[in-house]
């Protein structure tokens, strides 16, 4: 093995062993690539899921662990999926500097689609297209699915049984959210007041006329 163990380099200090449970949780949290749910943390500490003693003990150890990292560059946080360590945001710039590849920007089309799914879920693709006023490309739906942000949670009982999309736990985790309602609220729909009449091309607007309105359906009227 070519790995150099740096502990050999360190100064010899009096050994103060941290409590085992804290180290176990630390190991599990660092080893995971996603937030770790409480039940997995309990399992690591050999607590059954229904073990009444386990939860408070694990939570106390998590608090100690978090305190241990108070002065460091990372912090212990909880989001929808569970607990995880993350780099404190004040170090983001340096982390980005060390990463040669910049993450891709998300297109507006993708973000709008994602927003509609997030706020309107469960929603069909046709409903998304209704709101956006344009077709939603298959590419966008695939990208969202592959990133694990949306998934099909059912099918609408209409002809064709289109899939109903919803956001996932990964979506919440990636935004550091615990629950969906922690998303910033959607702008309120304003009440429509009386629309002012307007001059639509030189002709005075006629009030109270009773002519045949069907004539207005002419689609080609350009003037």
């Amino acid at each position, binding site marked *: 093995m070519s790995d150099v163990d740096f502990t050999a380099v360190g100064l010899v200090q009096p050994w103060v062993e941290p409590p085992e449970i804290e180290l176990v949780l630390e190991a599990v949290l660092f080893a995971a690539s996603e937030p770790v749910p409480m039940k997995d943390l309990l399992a690591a500490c050999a607590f059954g899921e229904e073990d009444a003693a386990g939860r408070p003990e694990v939570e106390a150890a998590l608090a100690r662990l978090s305190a241990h990292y108070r002065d460091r560059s990372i912090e212990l946080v909880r989001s929808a999926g569970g607990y995880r360590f993350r780099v404190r945001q004040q170090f983001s710039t340096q982390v980005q500097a060390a990463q040669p590849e910049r993450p891709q920007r998300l297109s507006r089309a993708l973000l709008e689609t994602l927003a509609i799914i997030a706020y309107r879920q469960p929603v069909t693709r046709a409903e998304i297209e209704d709101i956006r*006023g344009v077709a939603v490309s298959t590419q966008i739906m695939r990208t969202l699915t592959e990133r694990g942000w949306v998934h099909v949670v059912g099918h609408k009982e209409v002809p064709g049984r289109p899939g109903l999309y919803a956001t996932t736990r990964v979506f919440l985790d990636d935004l550091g959210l615990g629950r969906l309602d922690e998303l910033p609220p959607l702008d309120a729909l304003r009440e429509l007041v009386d629309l002012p009449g307007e001059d639509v091309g030189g002709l005075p607007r006629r009030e109270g006329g009773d*002519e045949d309105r069907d004539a207005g359906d002419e689609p080609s009227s350009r003037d």
Partner: protein
Amino acid sequence: MTEAEVLEEEPATDEVEWSCRVHGSPLGELPADLYIPPDALEVFLESFEGPLDLLLYLIRRQNLDILSIPIAEITRQYMAYIDVMQALRLELAGEYLVMAALLAEIKSRMLLPRPPAATDEEDDPRLALIRQLQEYERFKAAAERLDAMPRLERDVFHAHAARDALLAPPAPAPALEELLDALVGVLRRASLRAHHQISAEALSVRERMARILETLEHEVFVDFVNLLTVEEGRPGVVVAFLAVLELSKAGLLEWGQGEAFGPIQVRRRAPAPIEE
């Protein structure tokens, strides 16, 4: 937008009559209130997420409230954009044309007198469009806020450590068929490289070679005959004998005879000093 710039409002002369001949006539034939640099058109198309987005842009540009859009004016401007794009033969998503038709319809309906009883909101043809625009605008704003939120792997980084020092559960032993399948693959490849040959040697001899090597040490001579196990019968003895010969041929064994006519002894050849 880089930008479809519109010079200040000037009563449209007549938007129906102008035409745009890009390769021939100058762009001066465009209506005075509409100037789009030709190279900006591609950008233009990519800049809008659809007809609703374009309409919102037109409305916002004039600091108008969605709730009270002047349909005639907006329609006029919208049509102007569409006409330019069509004149330039830019491929236009069908939705833009559908919206154009809708706007035209609304406008024409507004020209008509409304029945006295139908003065309430429900009857205003602008309402459905306004609702749609408002709805779209909410999600457009939500999308921007979503994008601004700290996002994993862009602004926020998960802290993790490699787990390769951890013992992964071992893979199950291969099934015999898997092993044979792999070997067939090798043989097939080897056969394509003609100069490589695998001769089929008796496994038993090879195995015995390995076993004998294991038992021998280089410090200790053992009697050669001890390597032959009589209990295995003739075939066994022959196998062992062949194995010893093979090992000898490969230079792995050293032979000795303590005394004349004494037992023939064998040991593993001492490791040679490493040299080239």
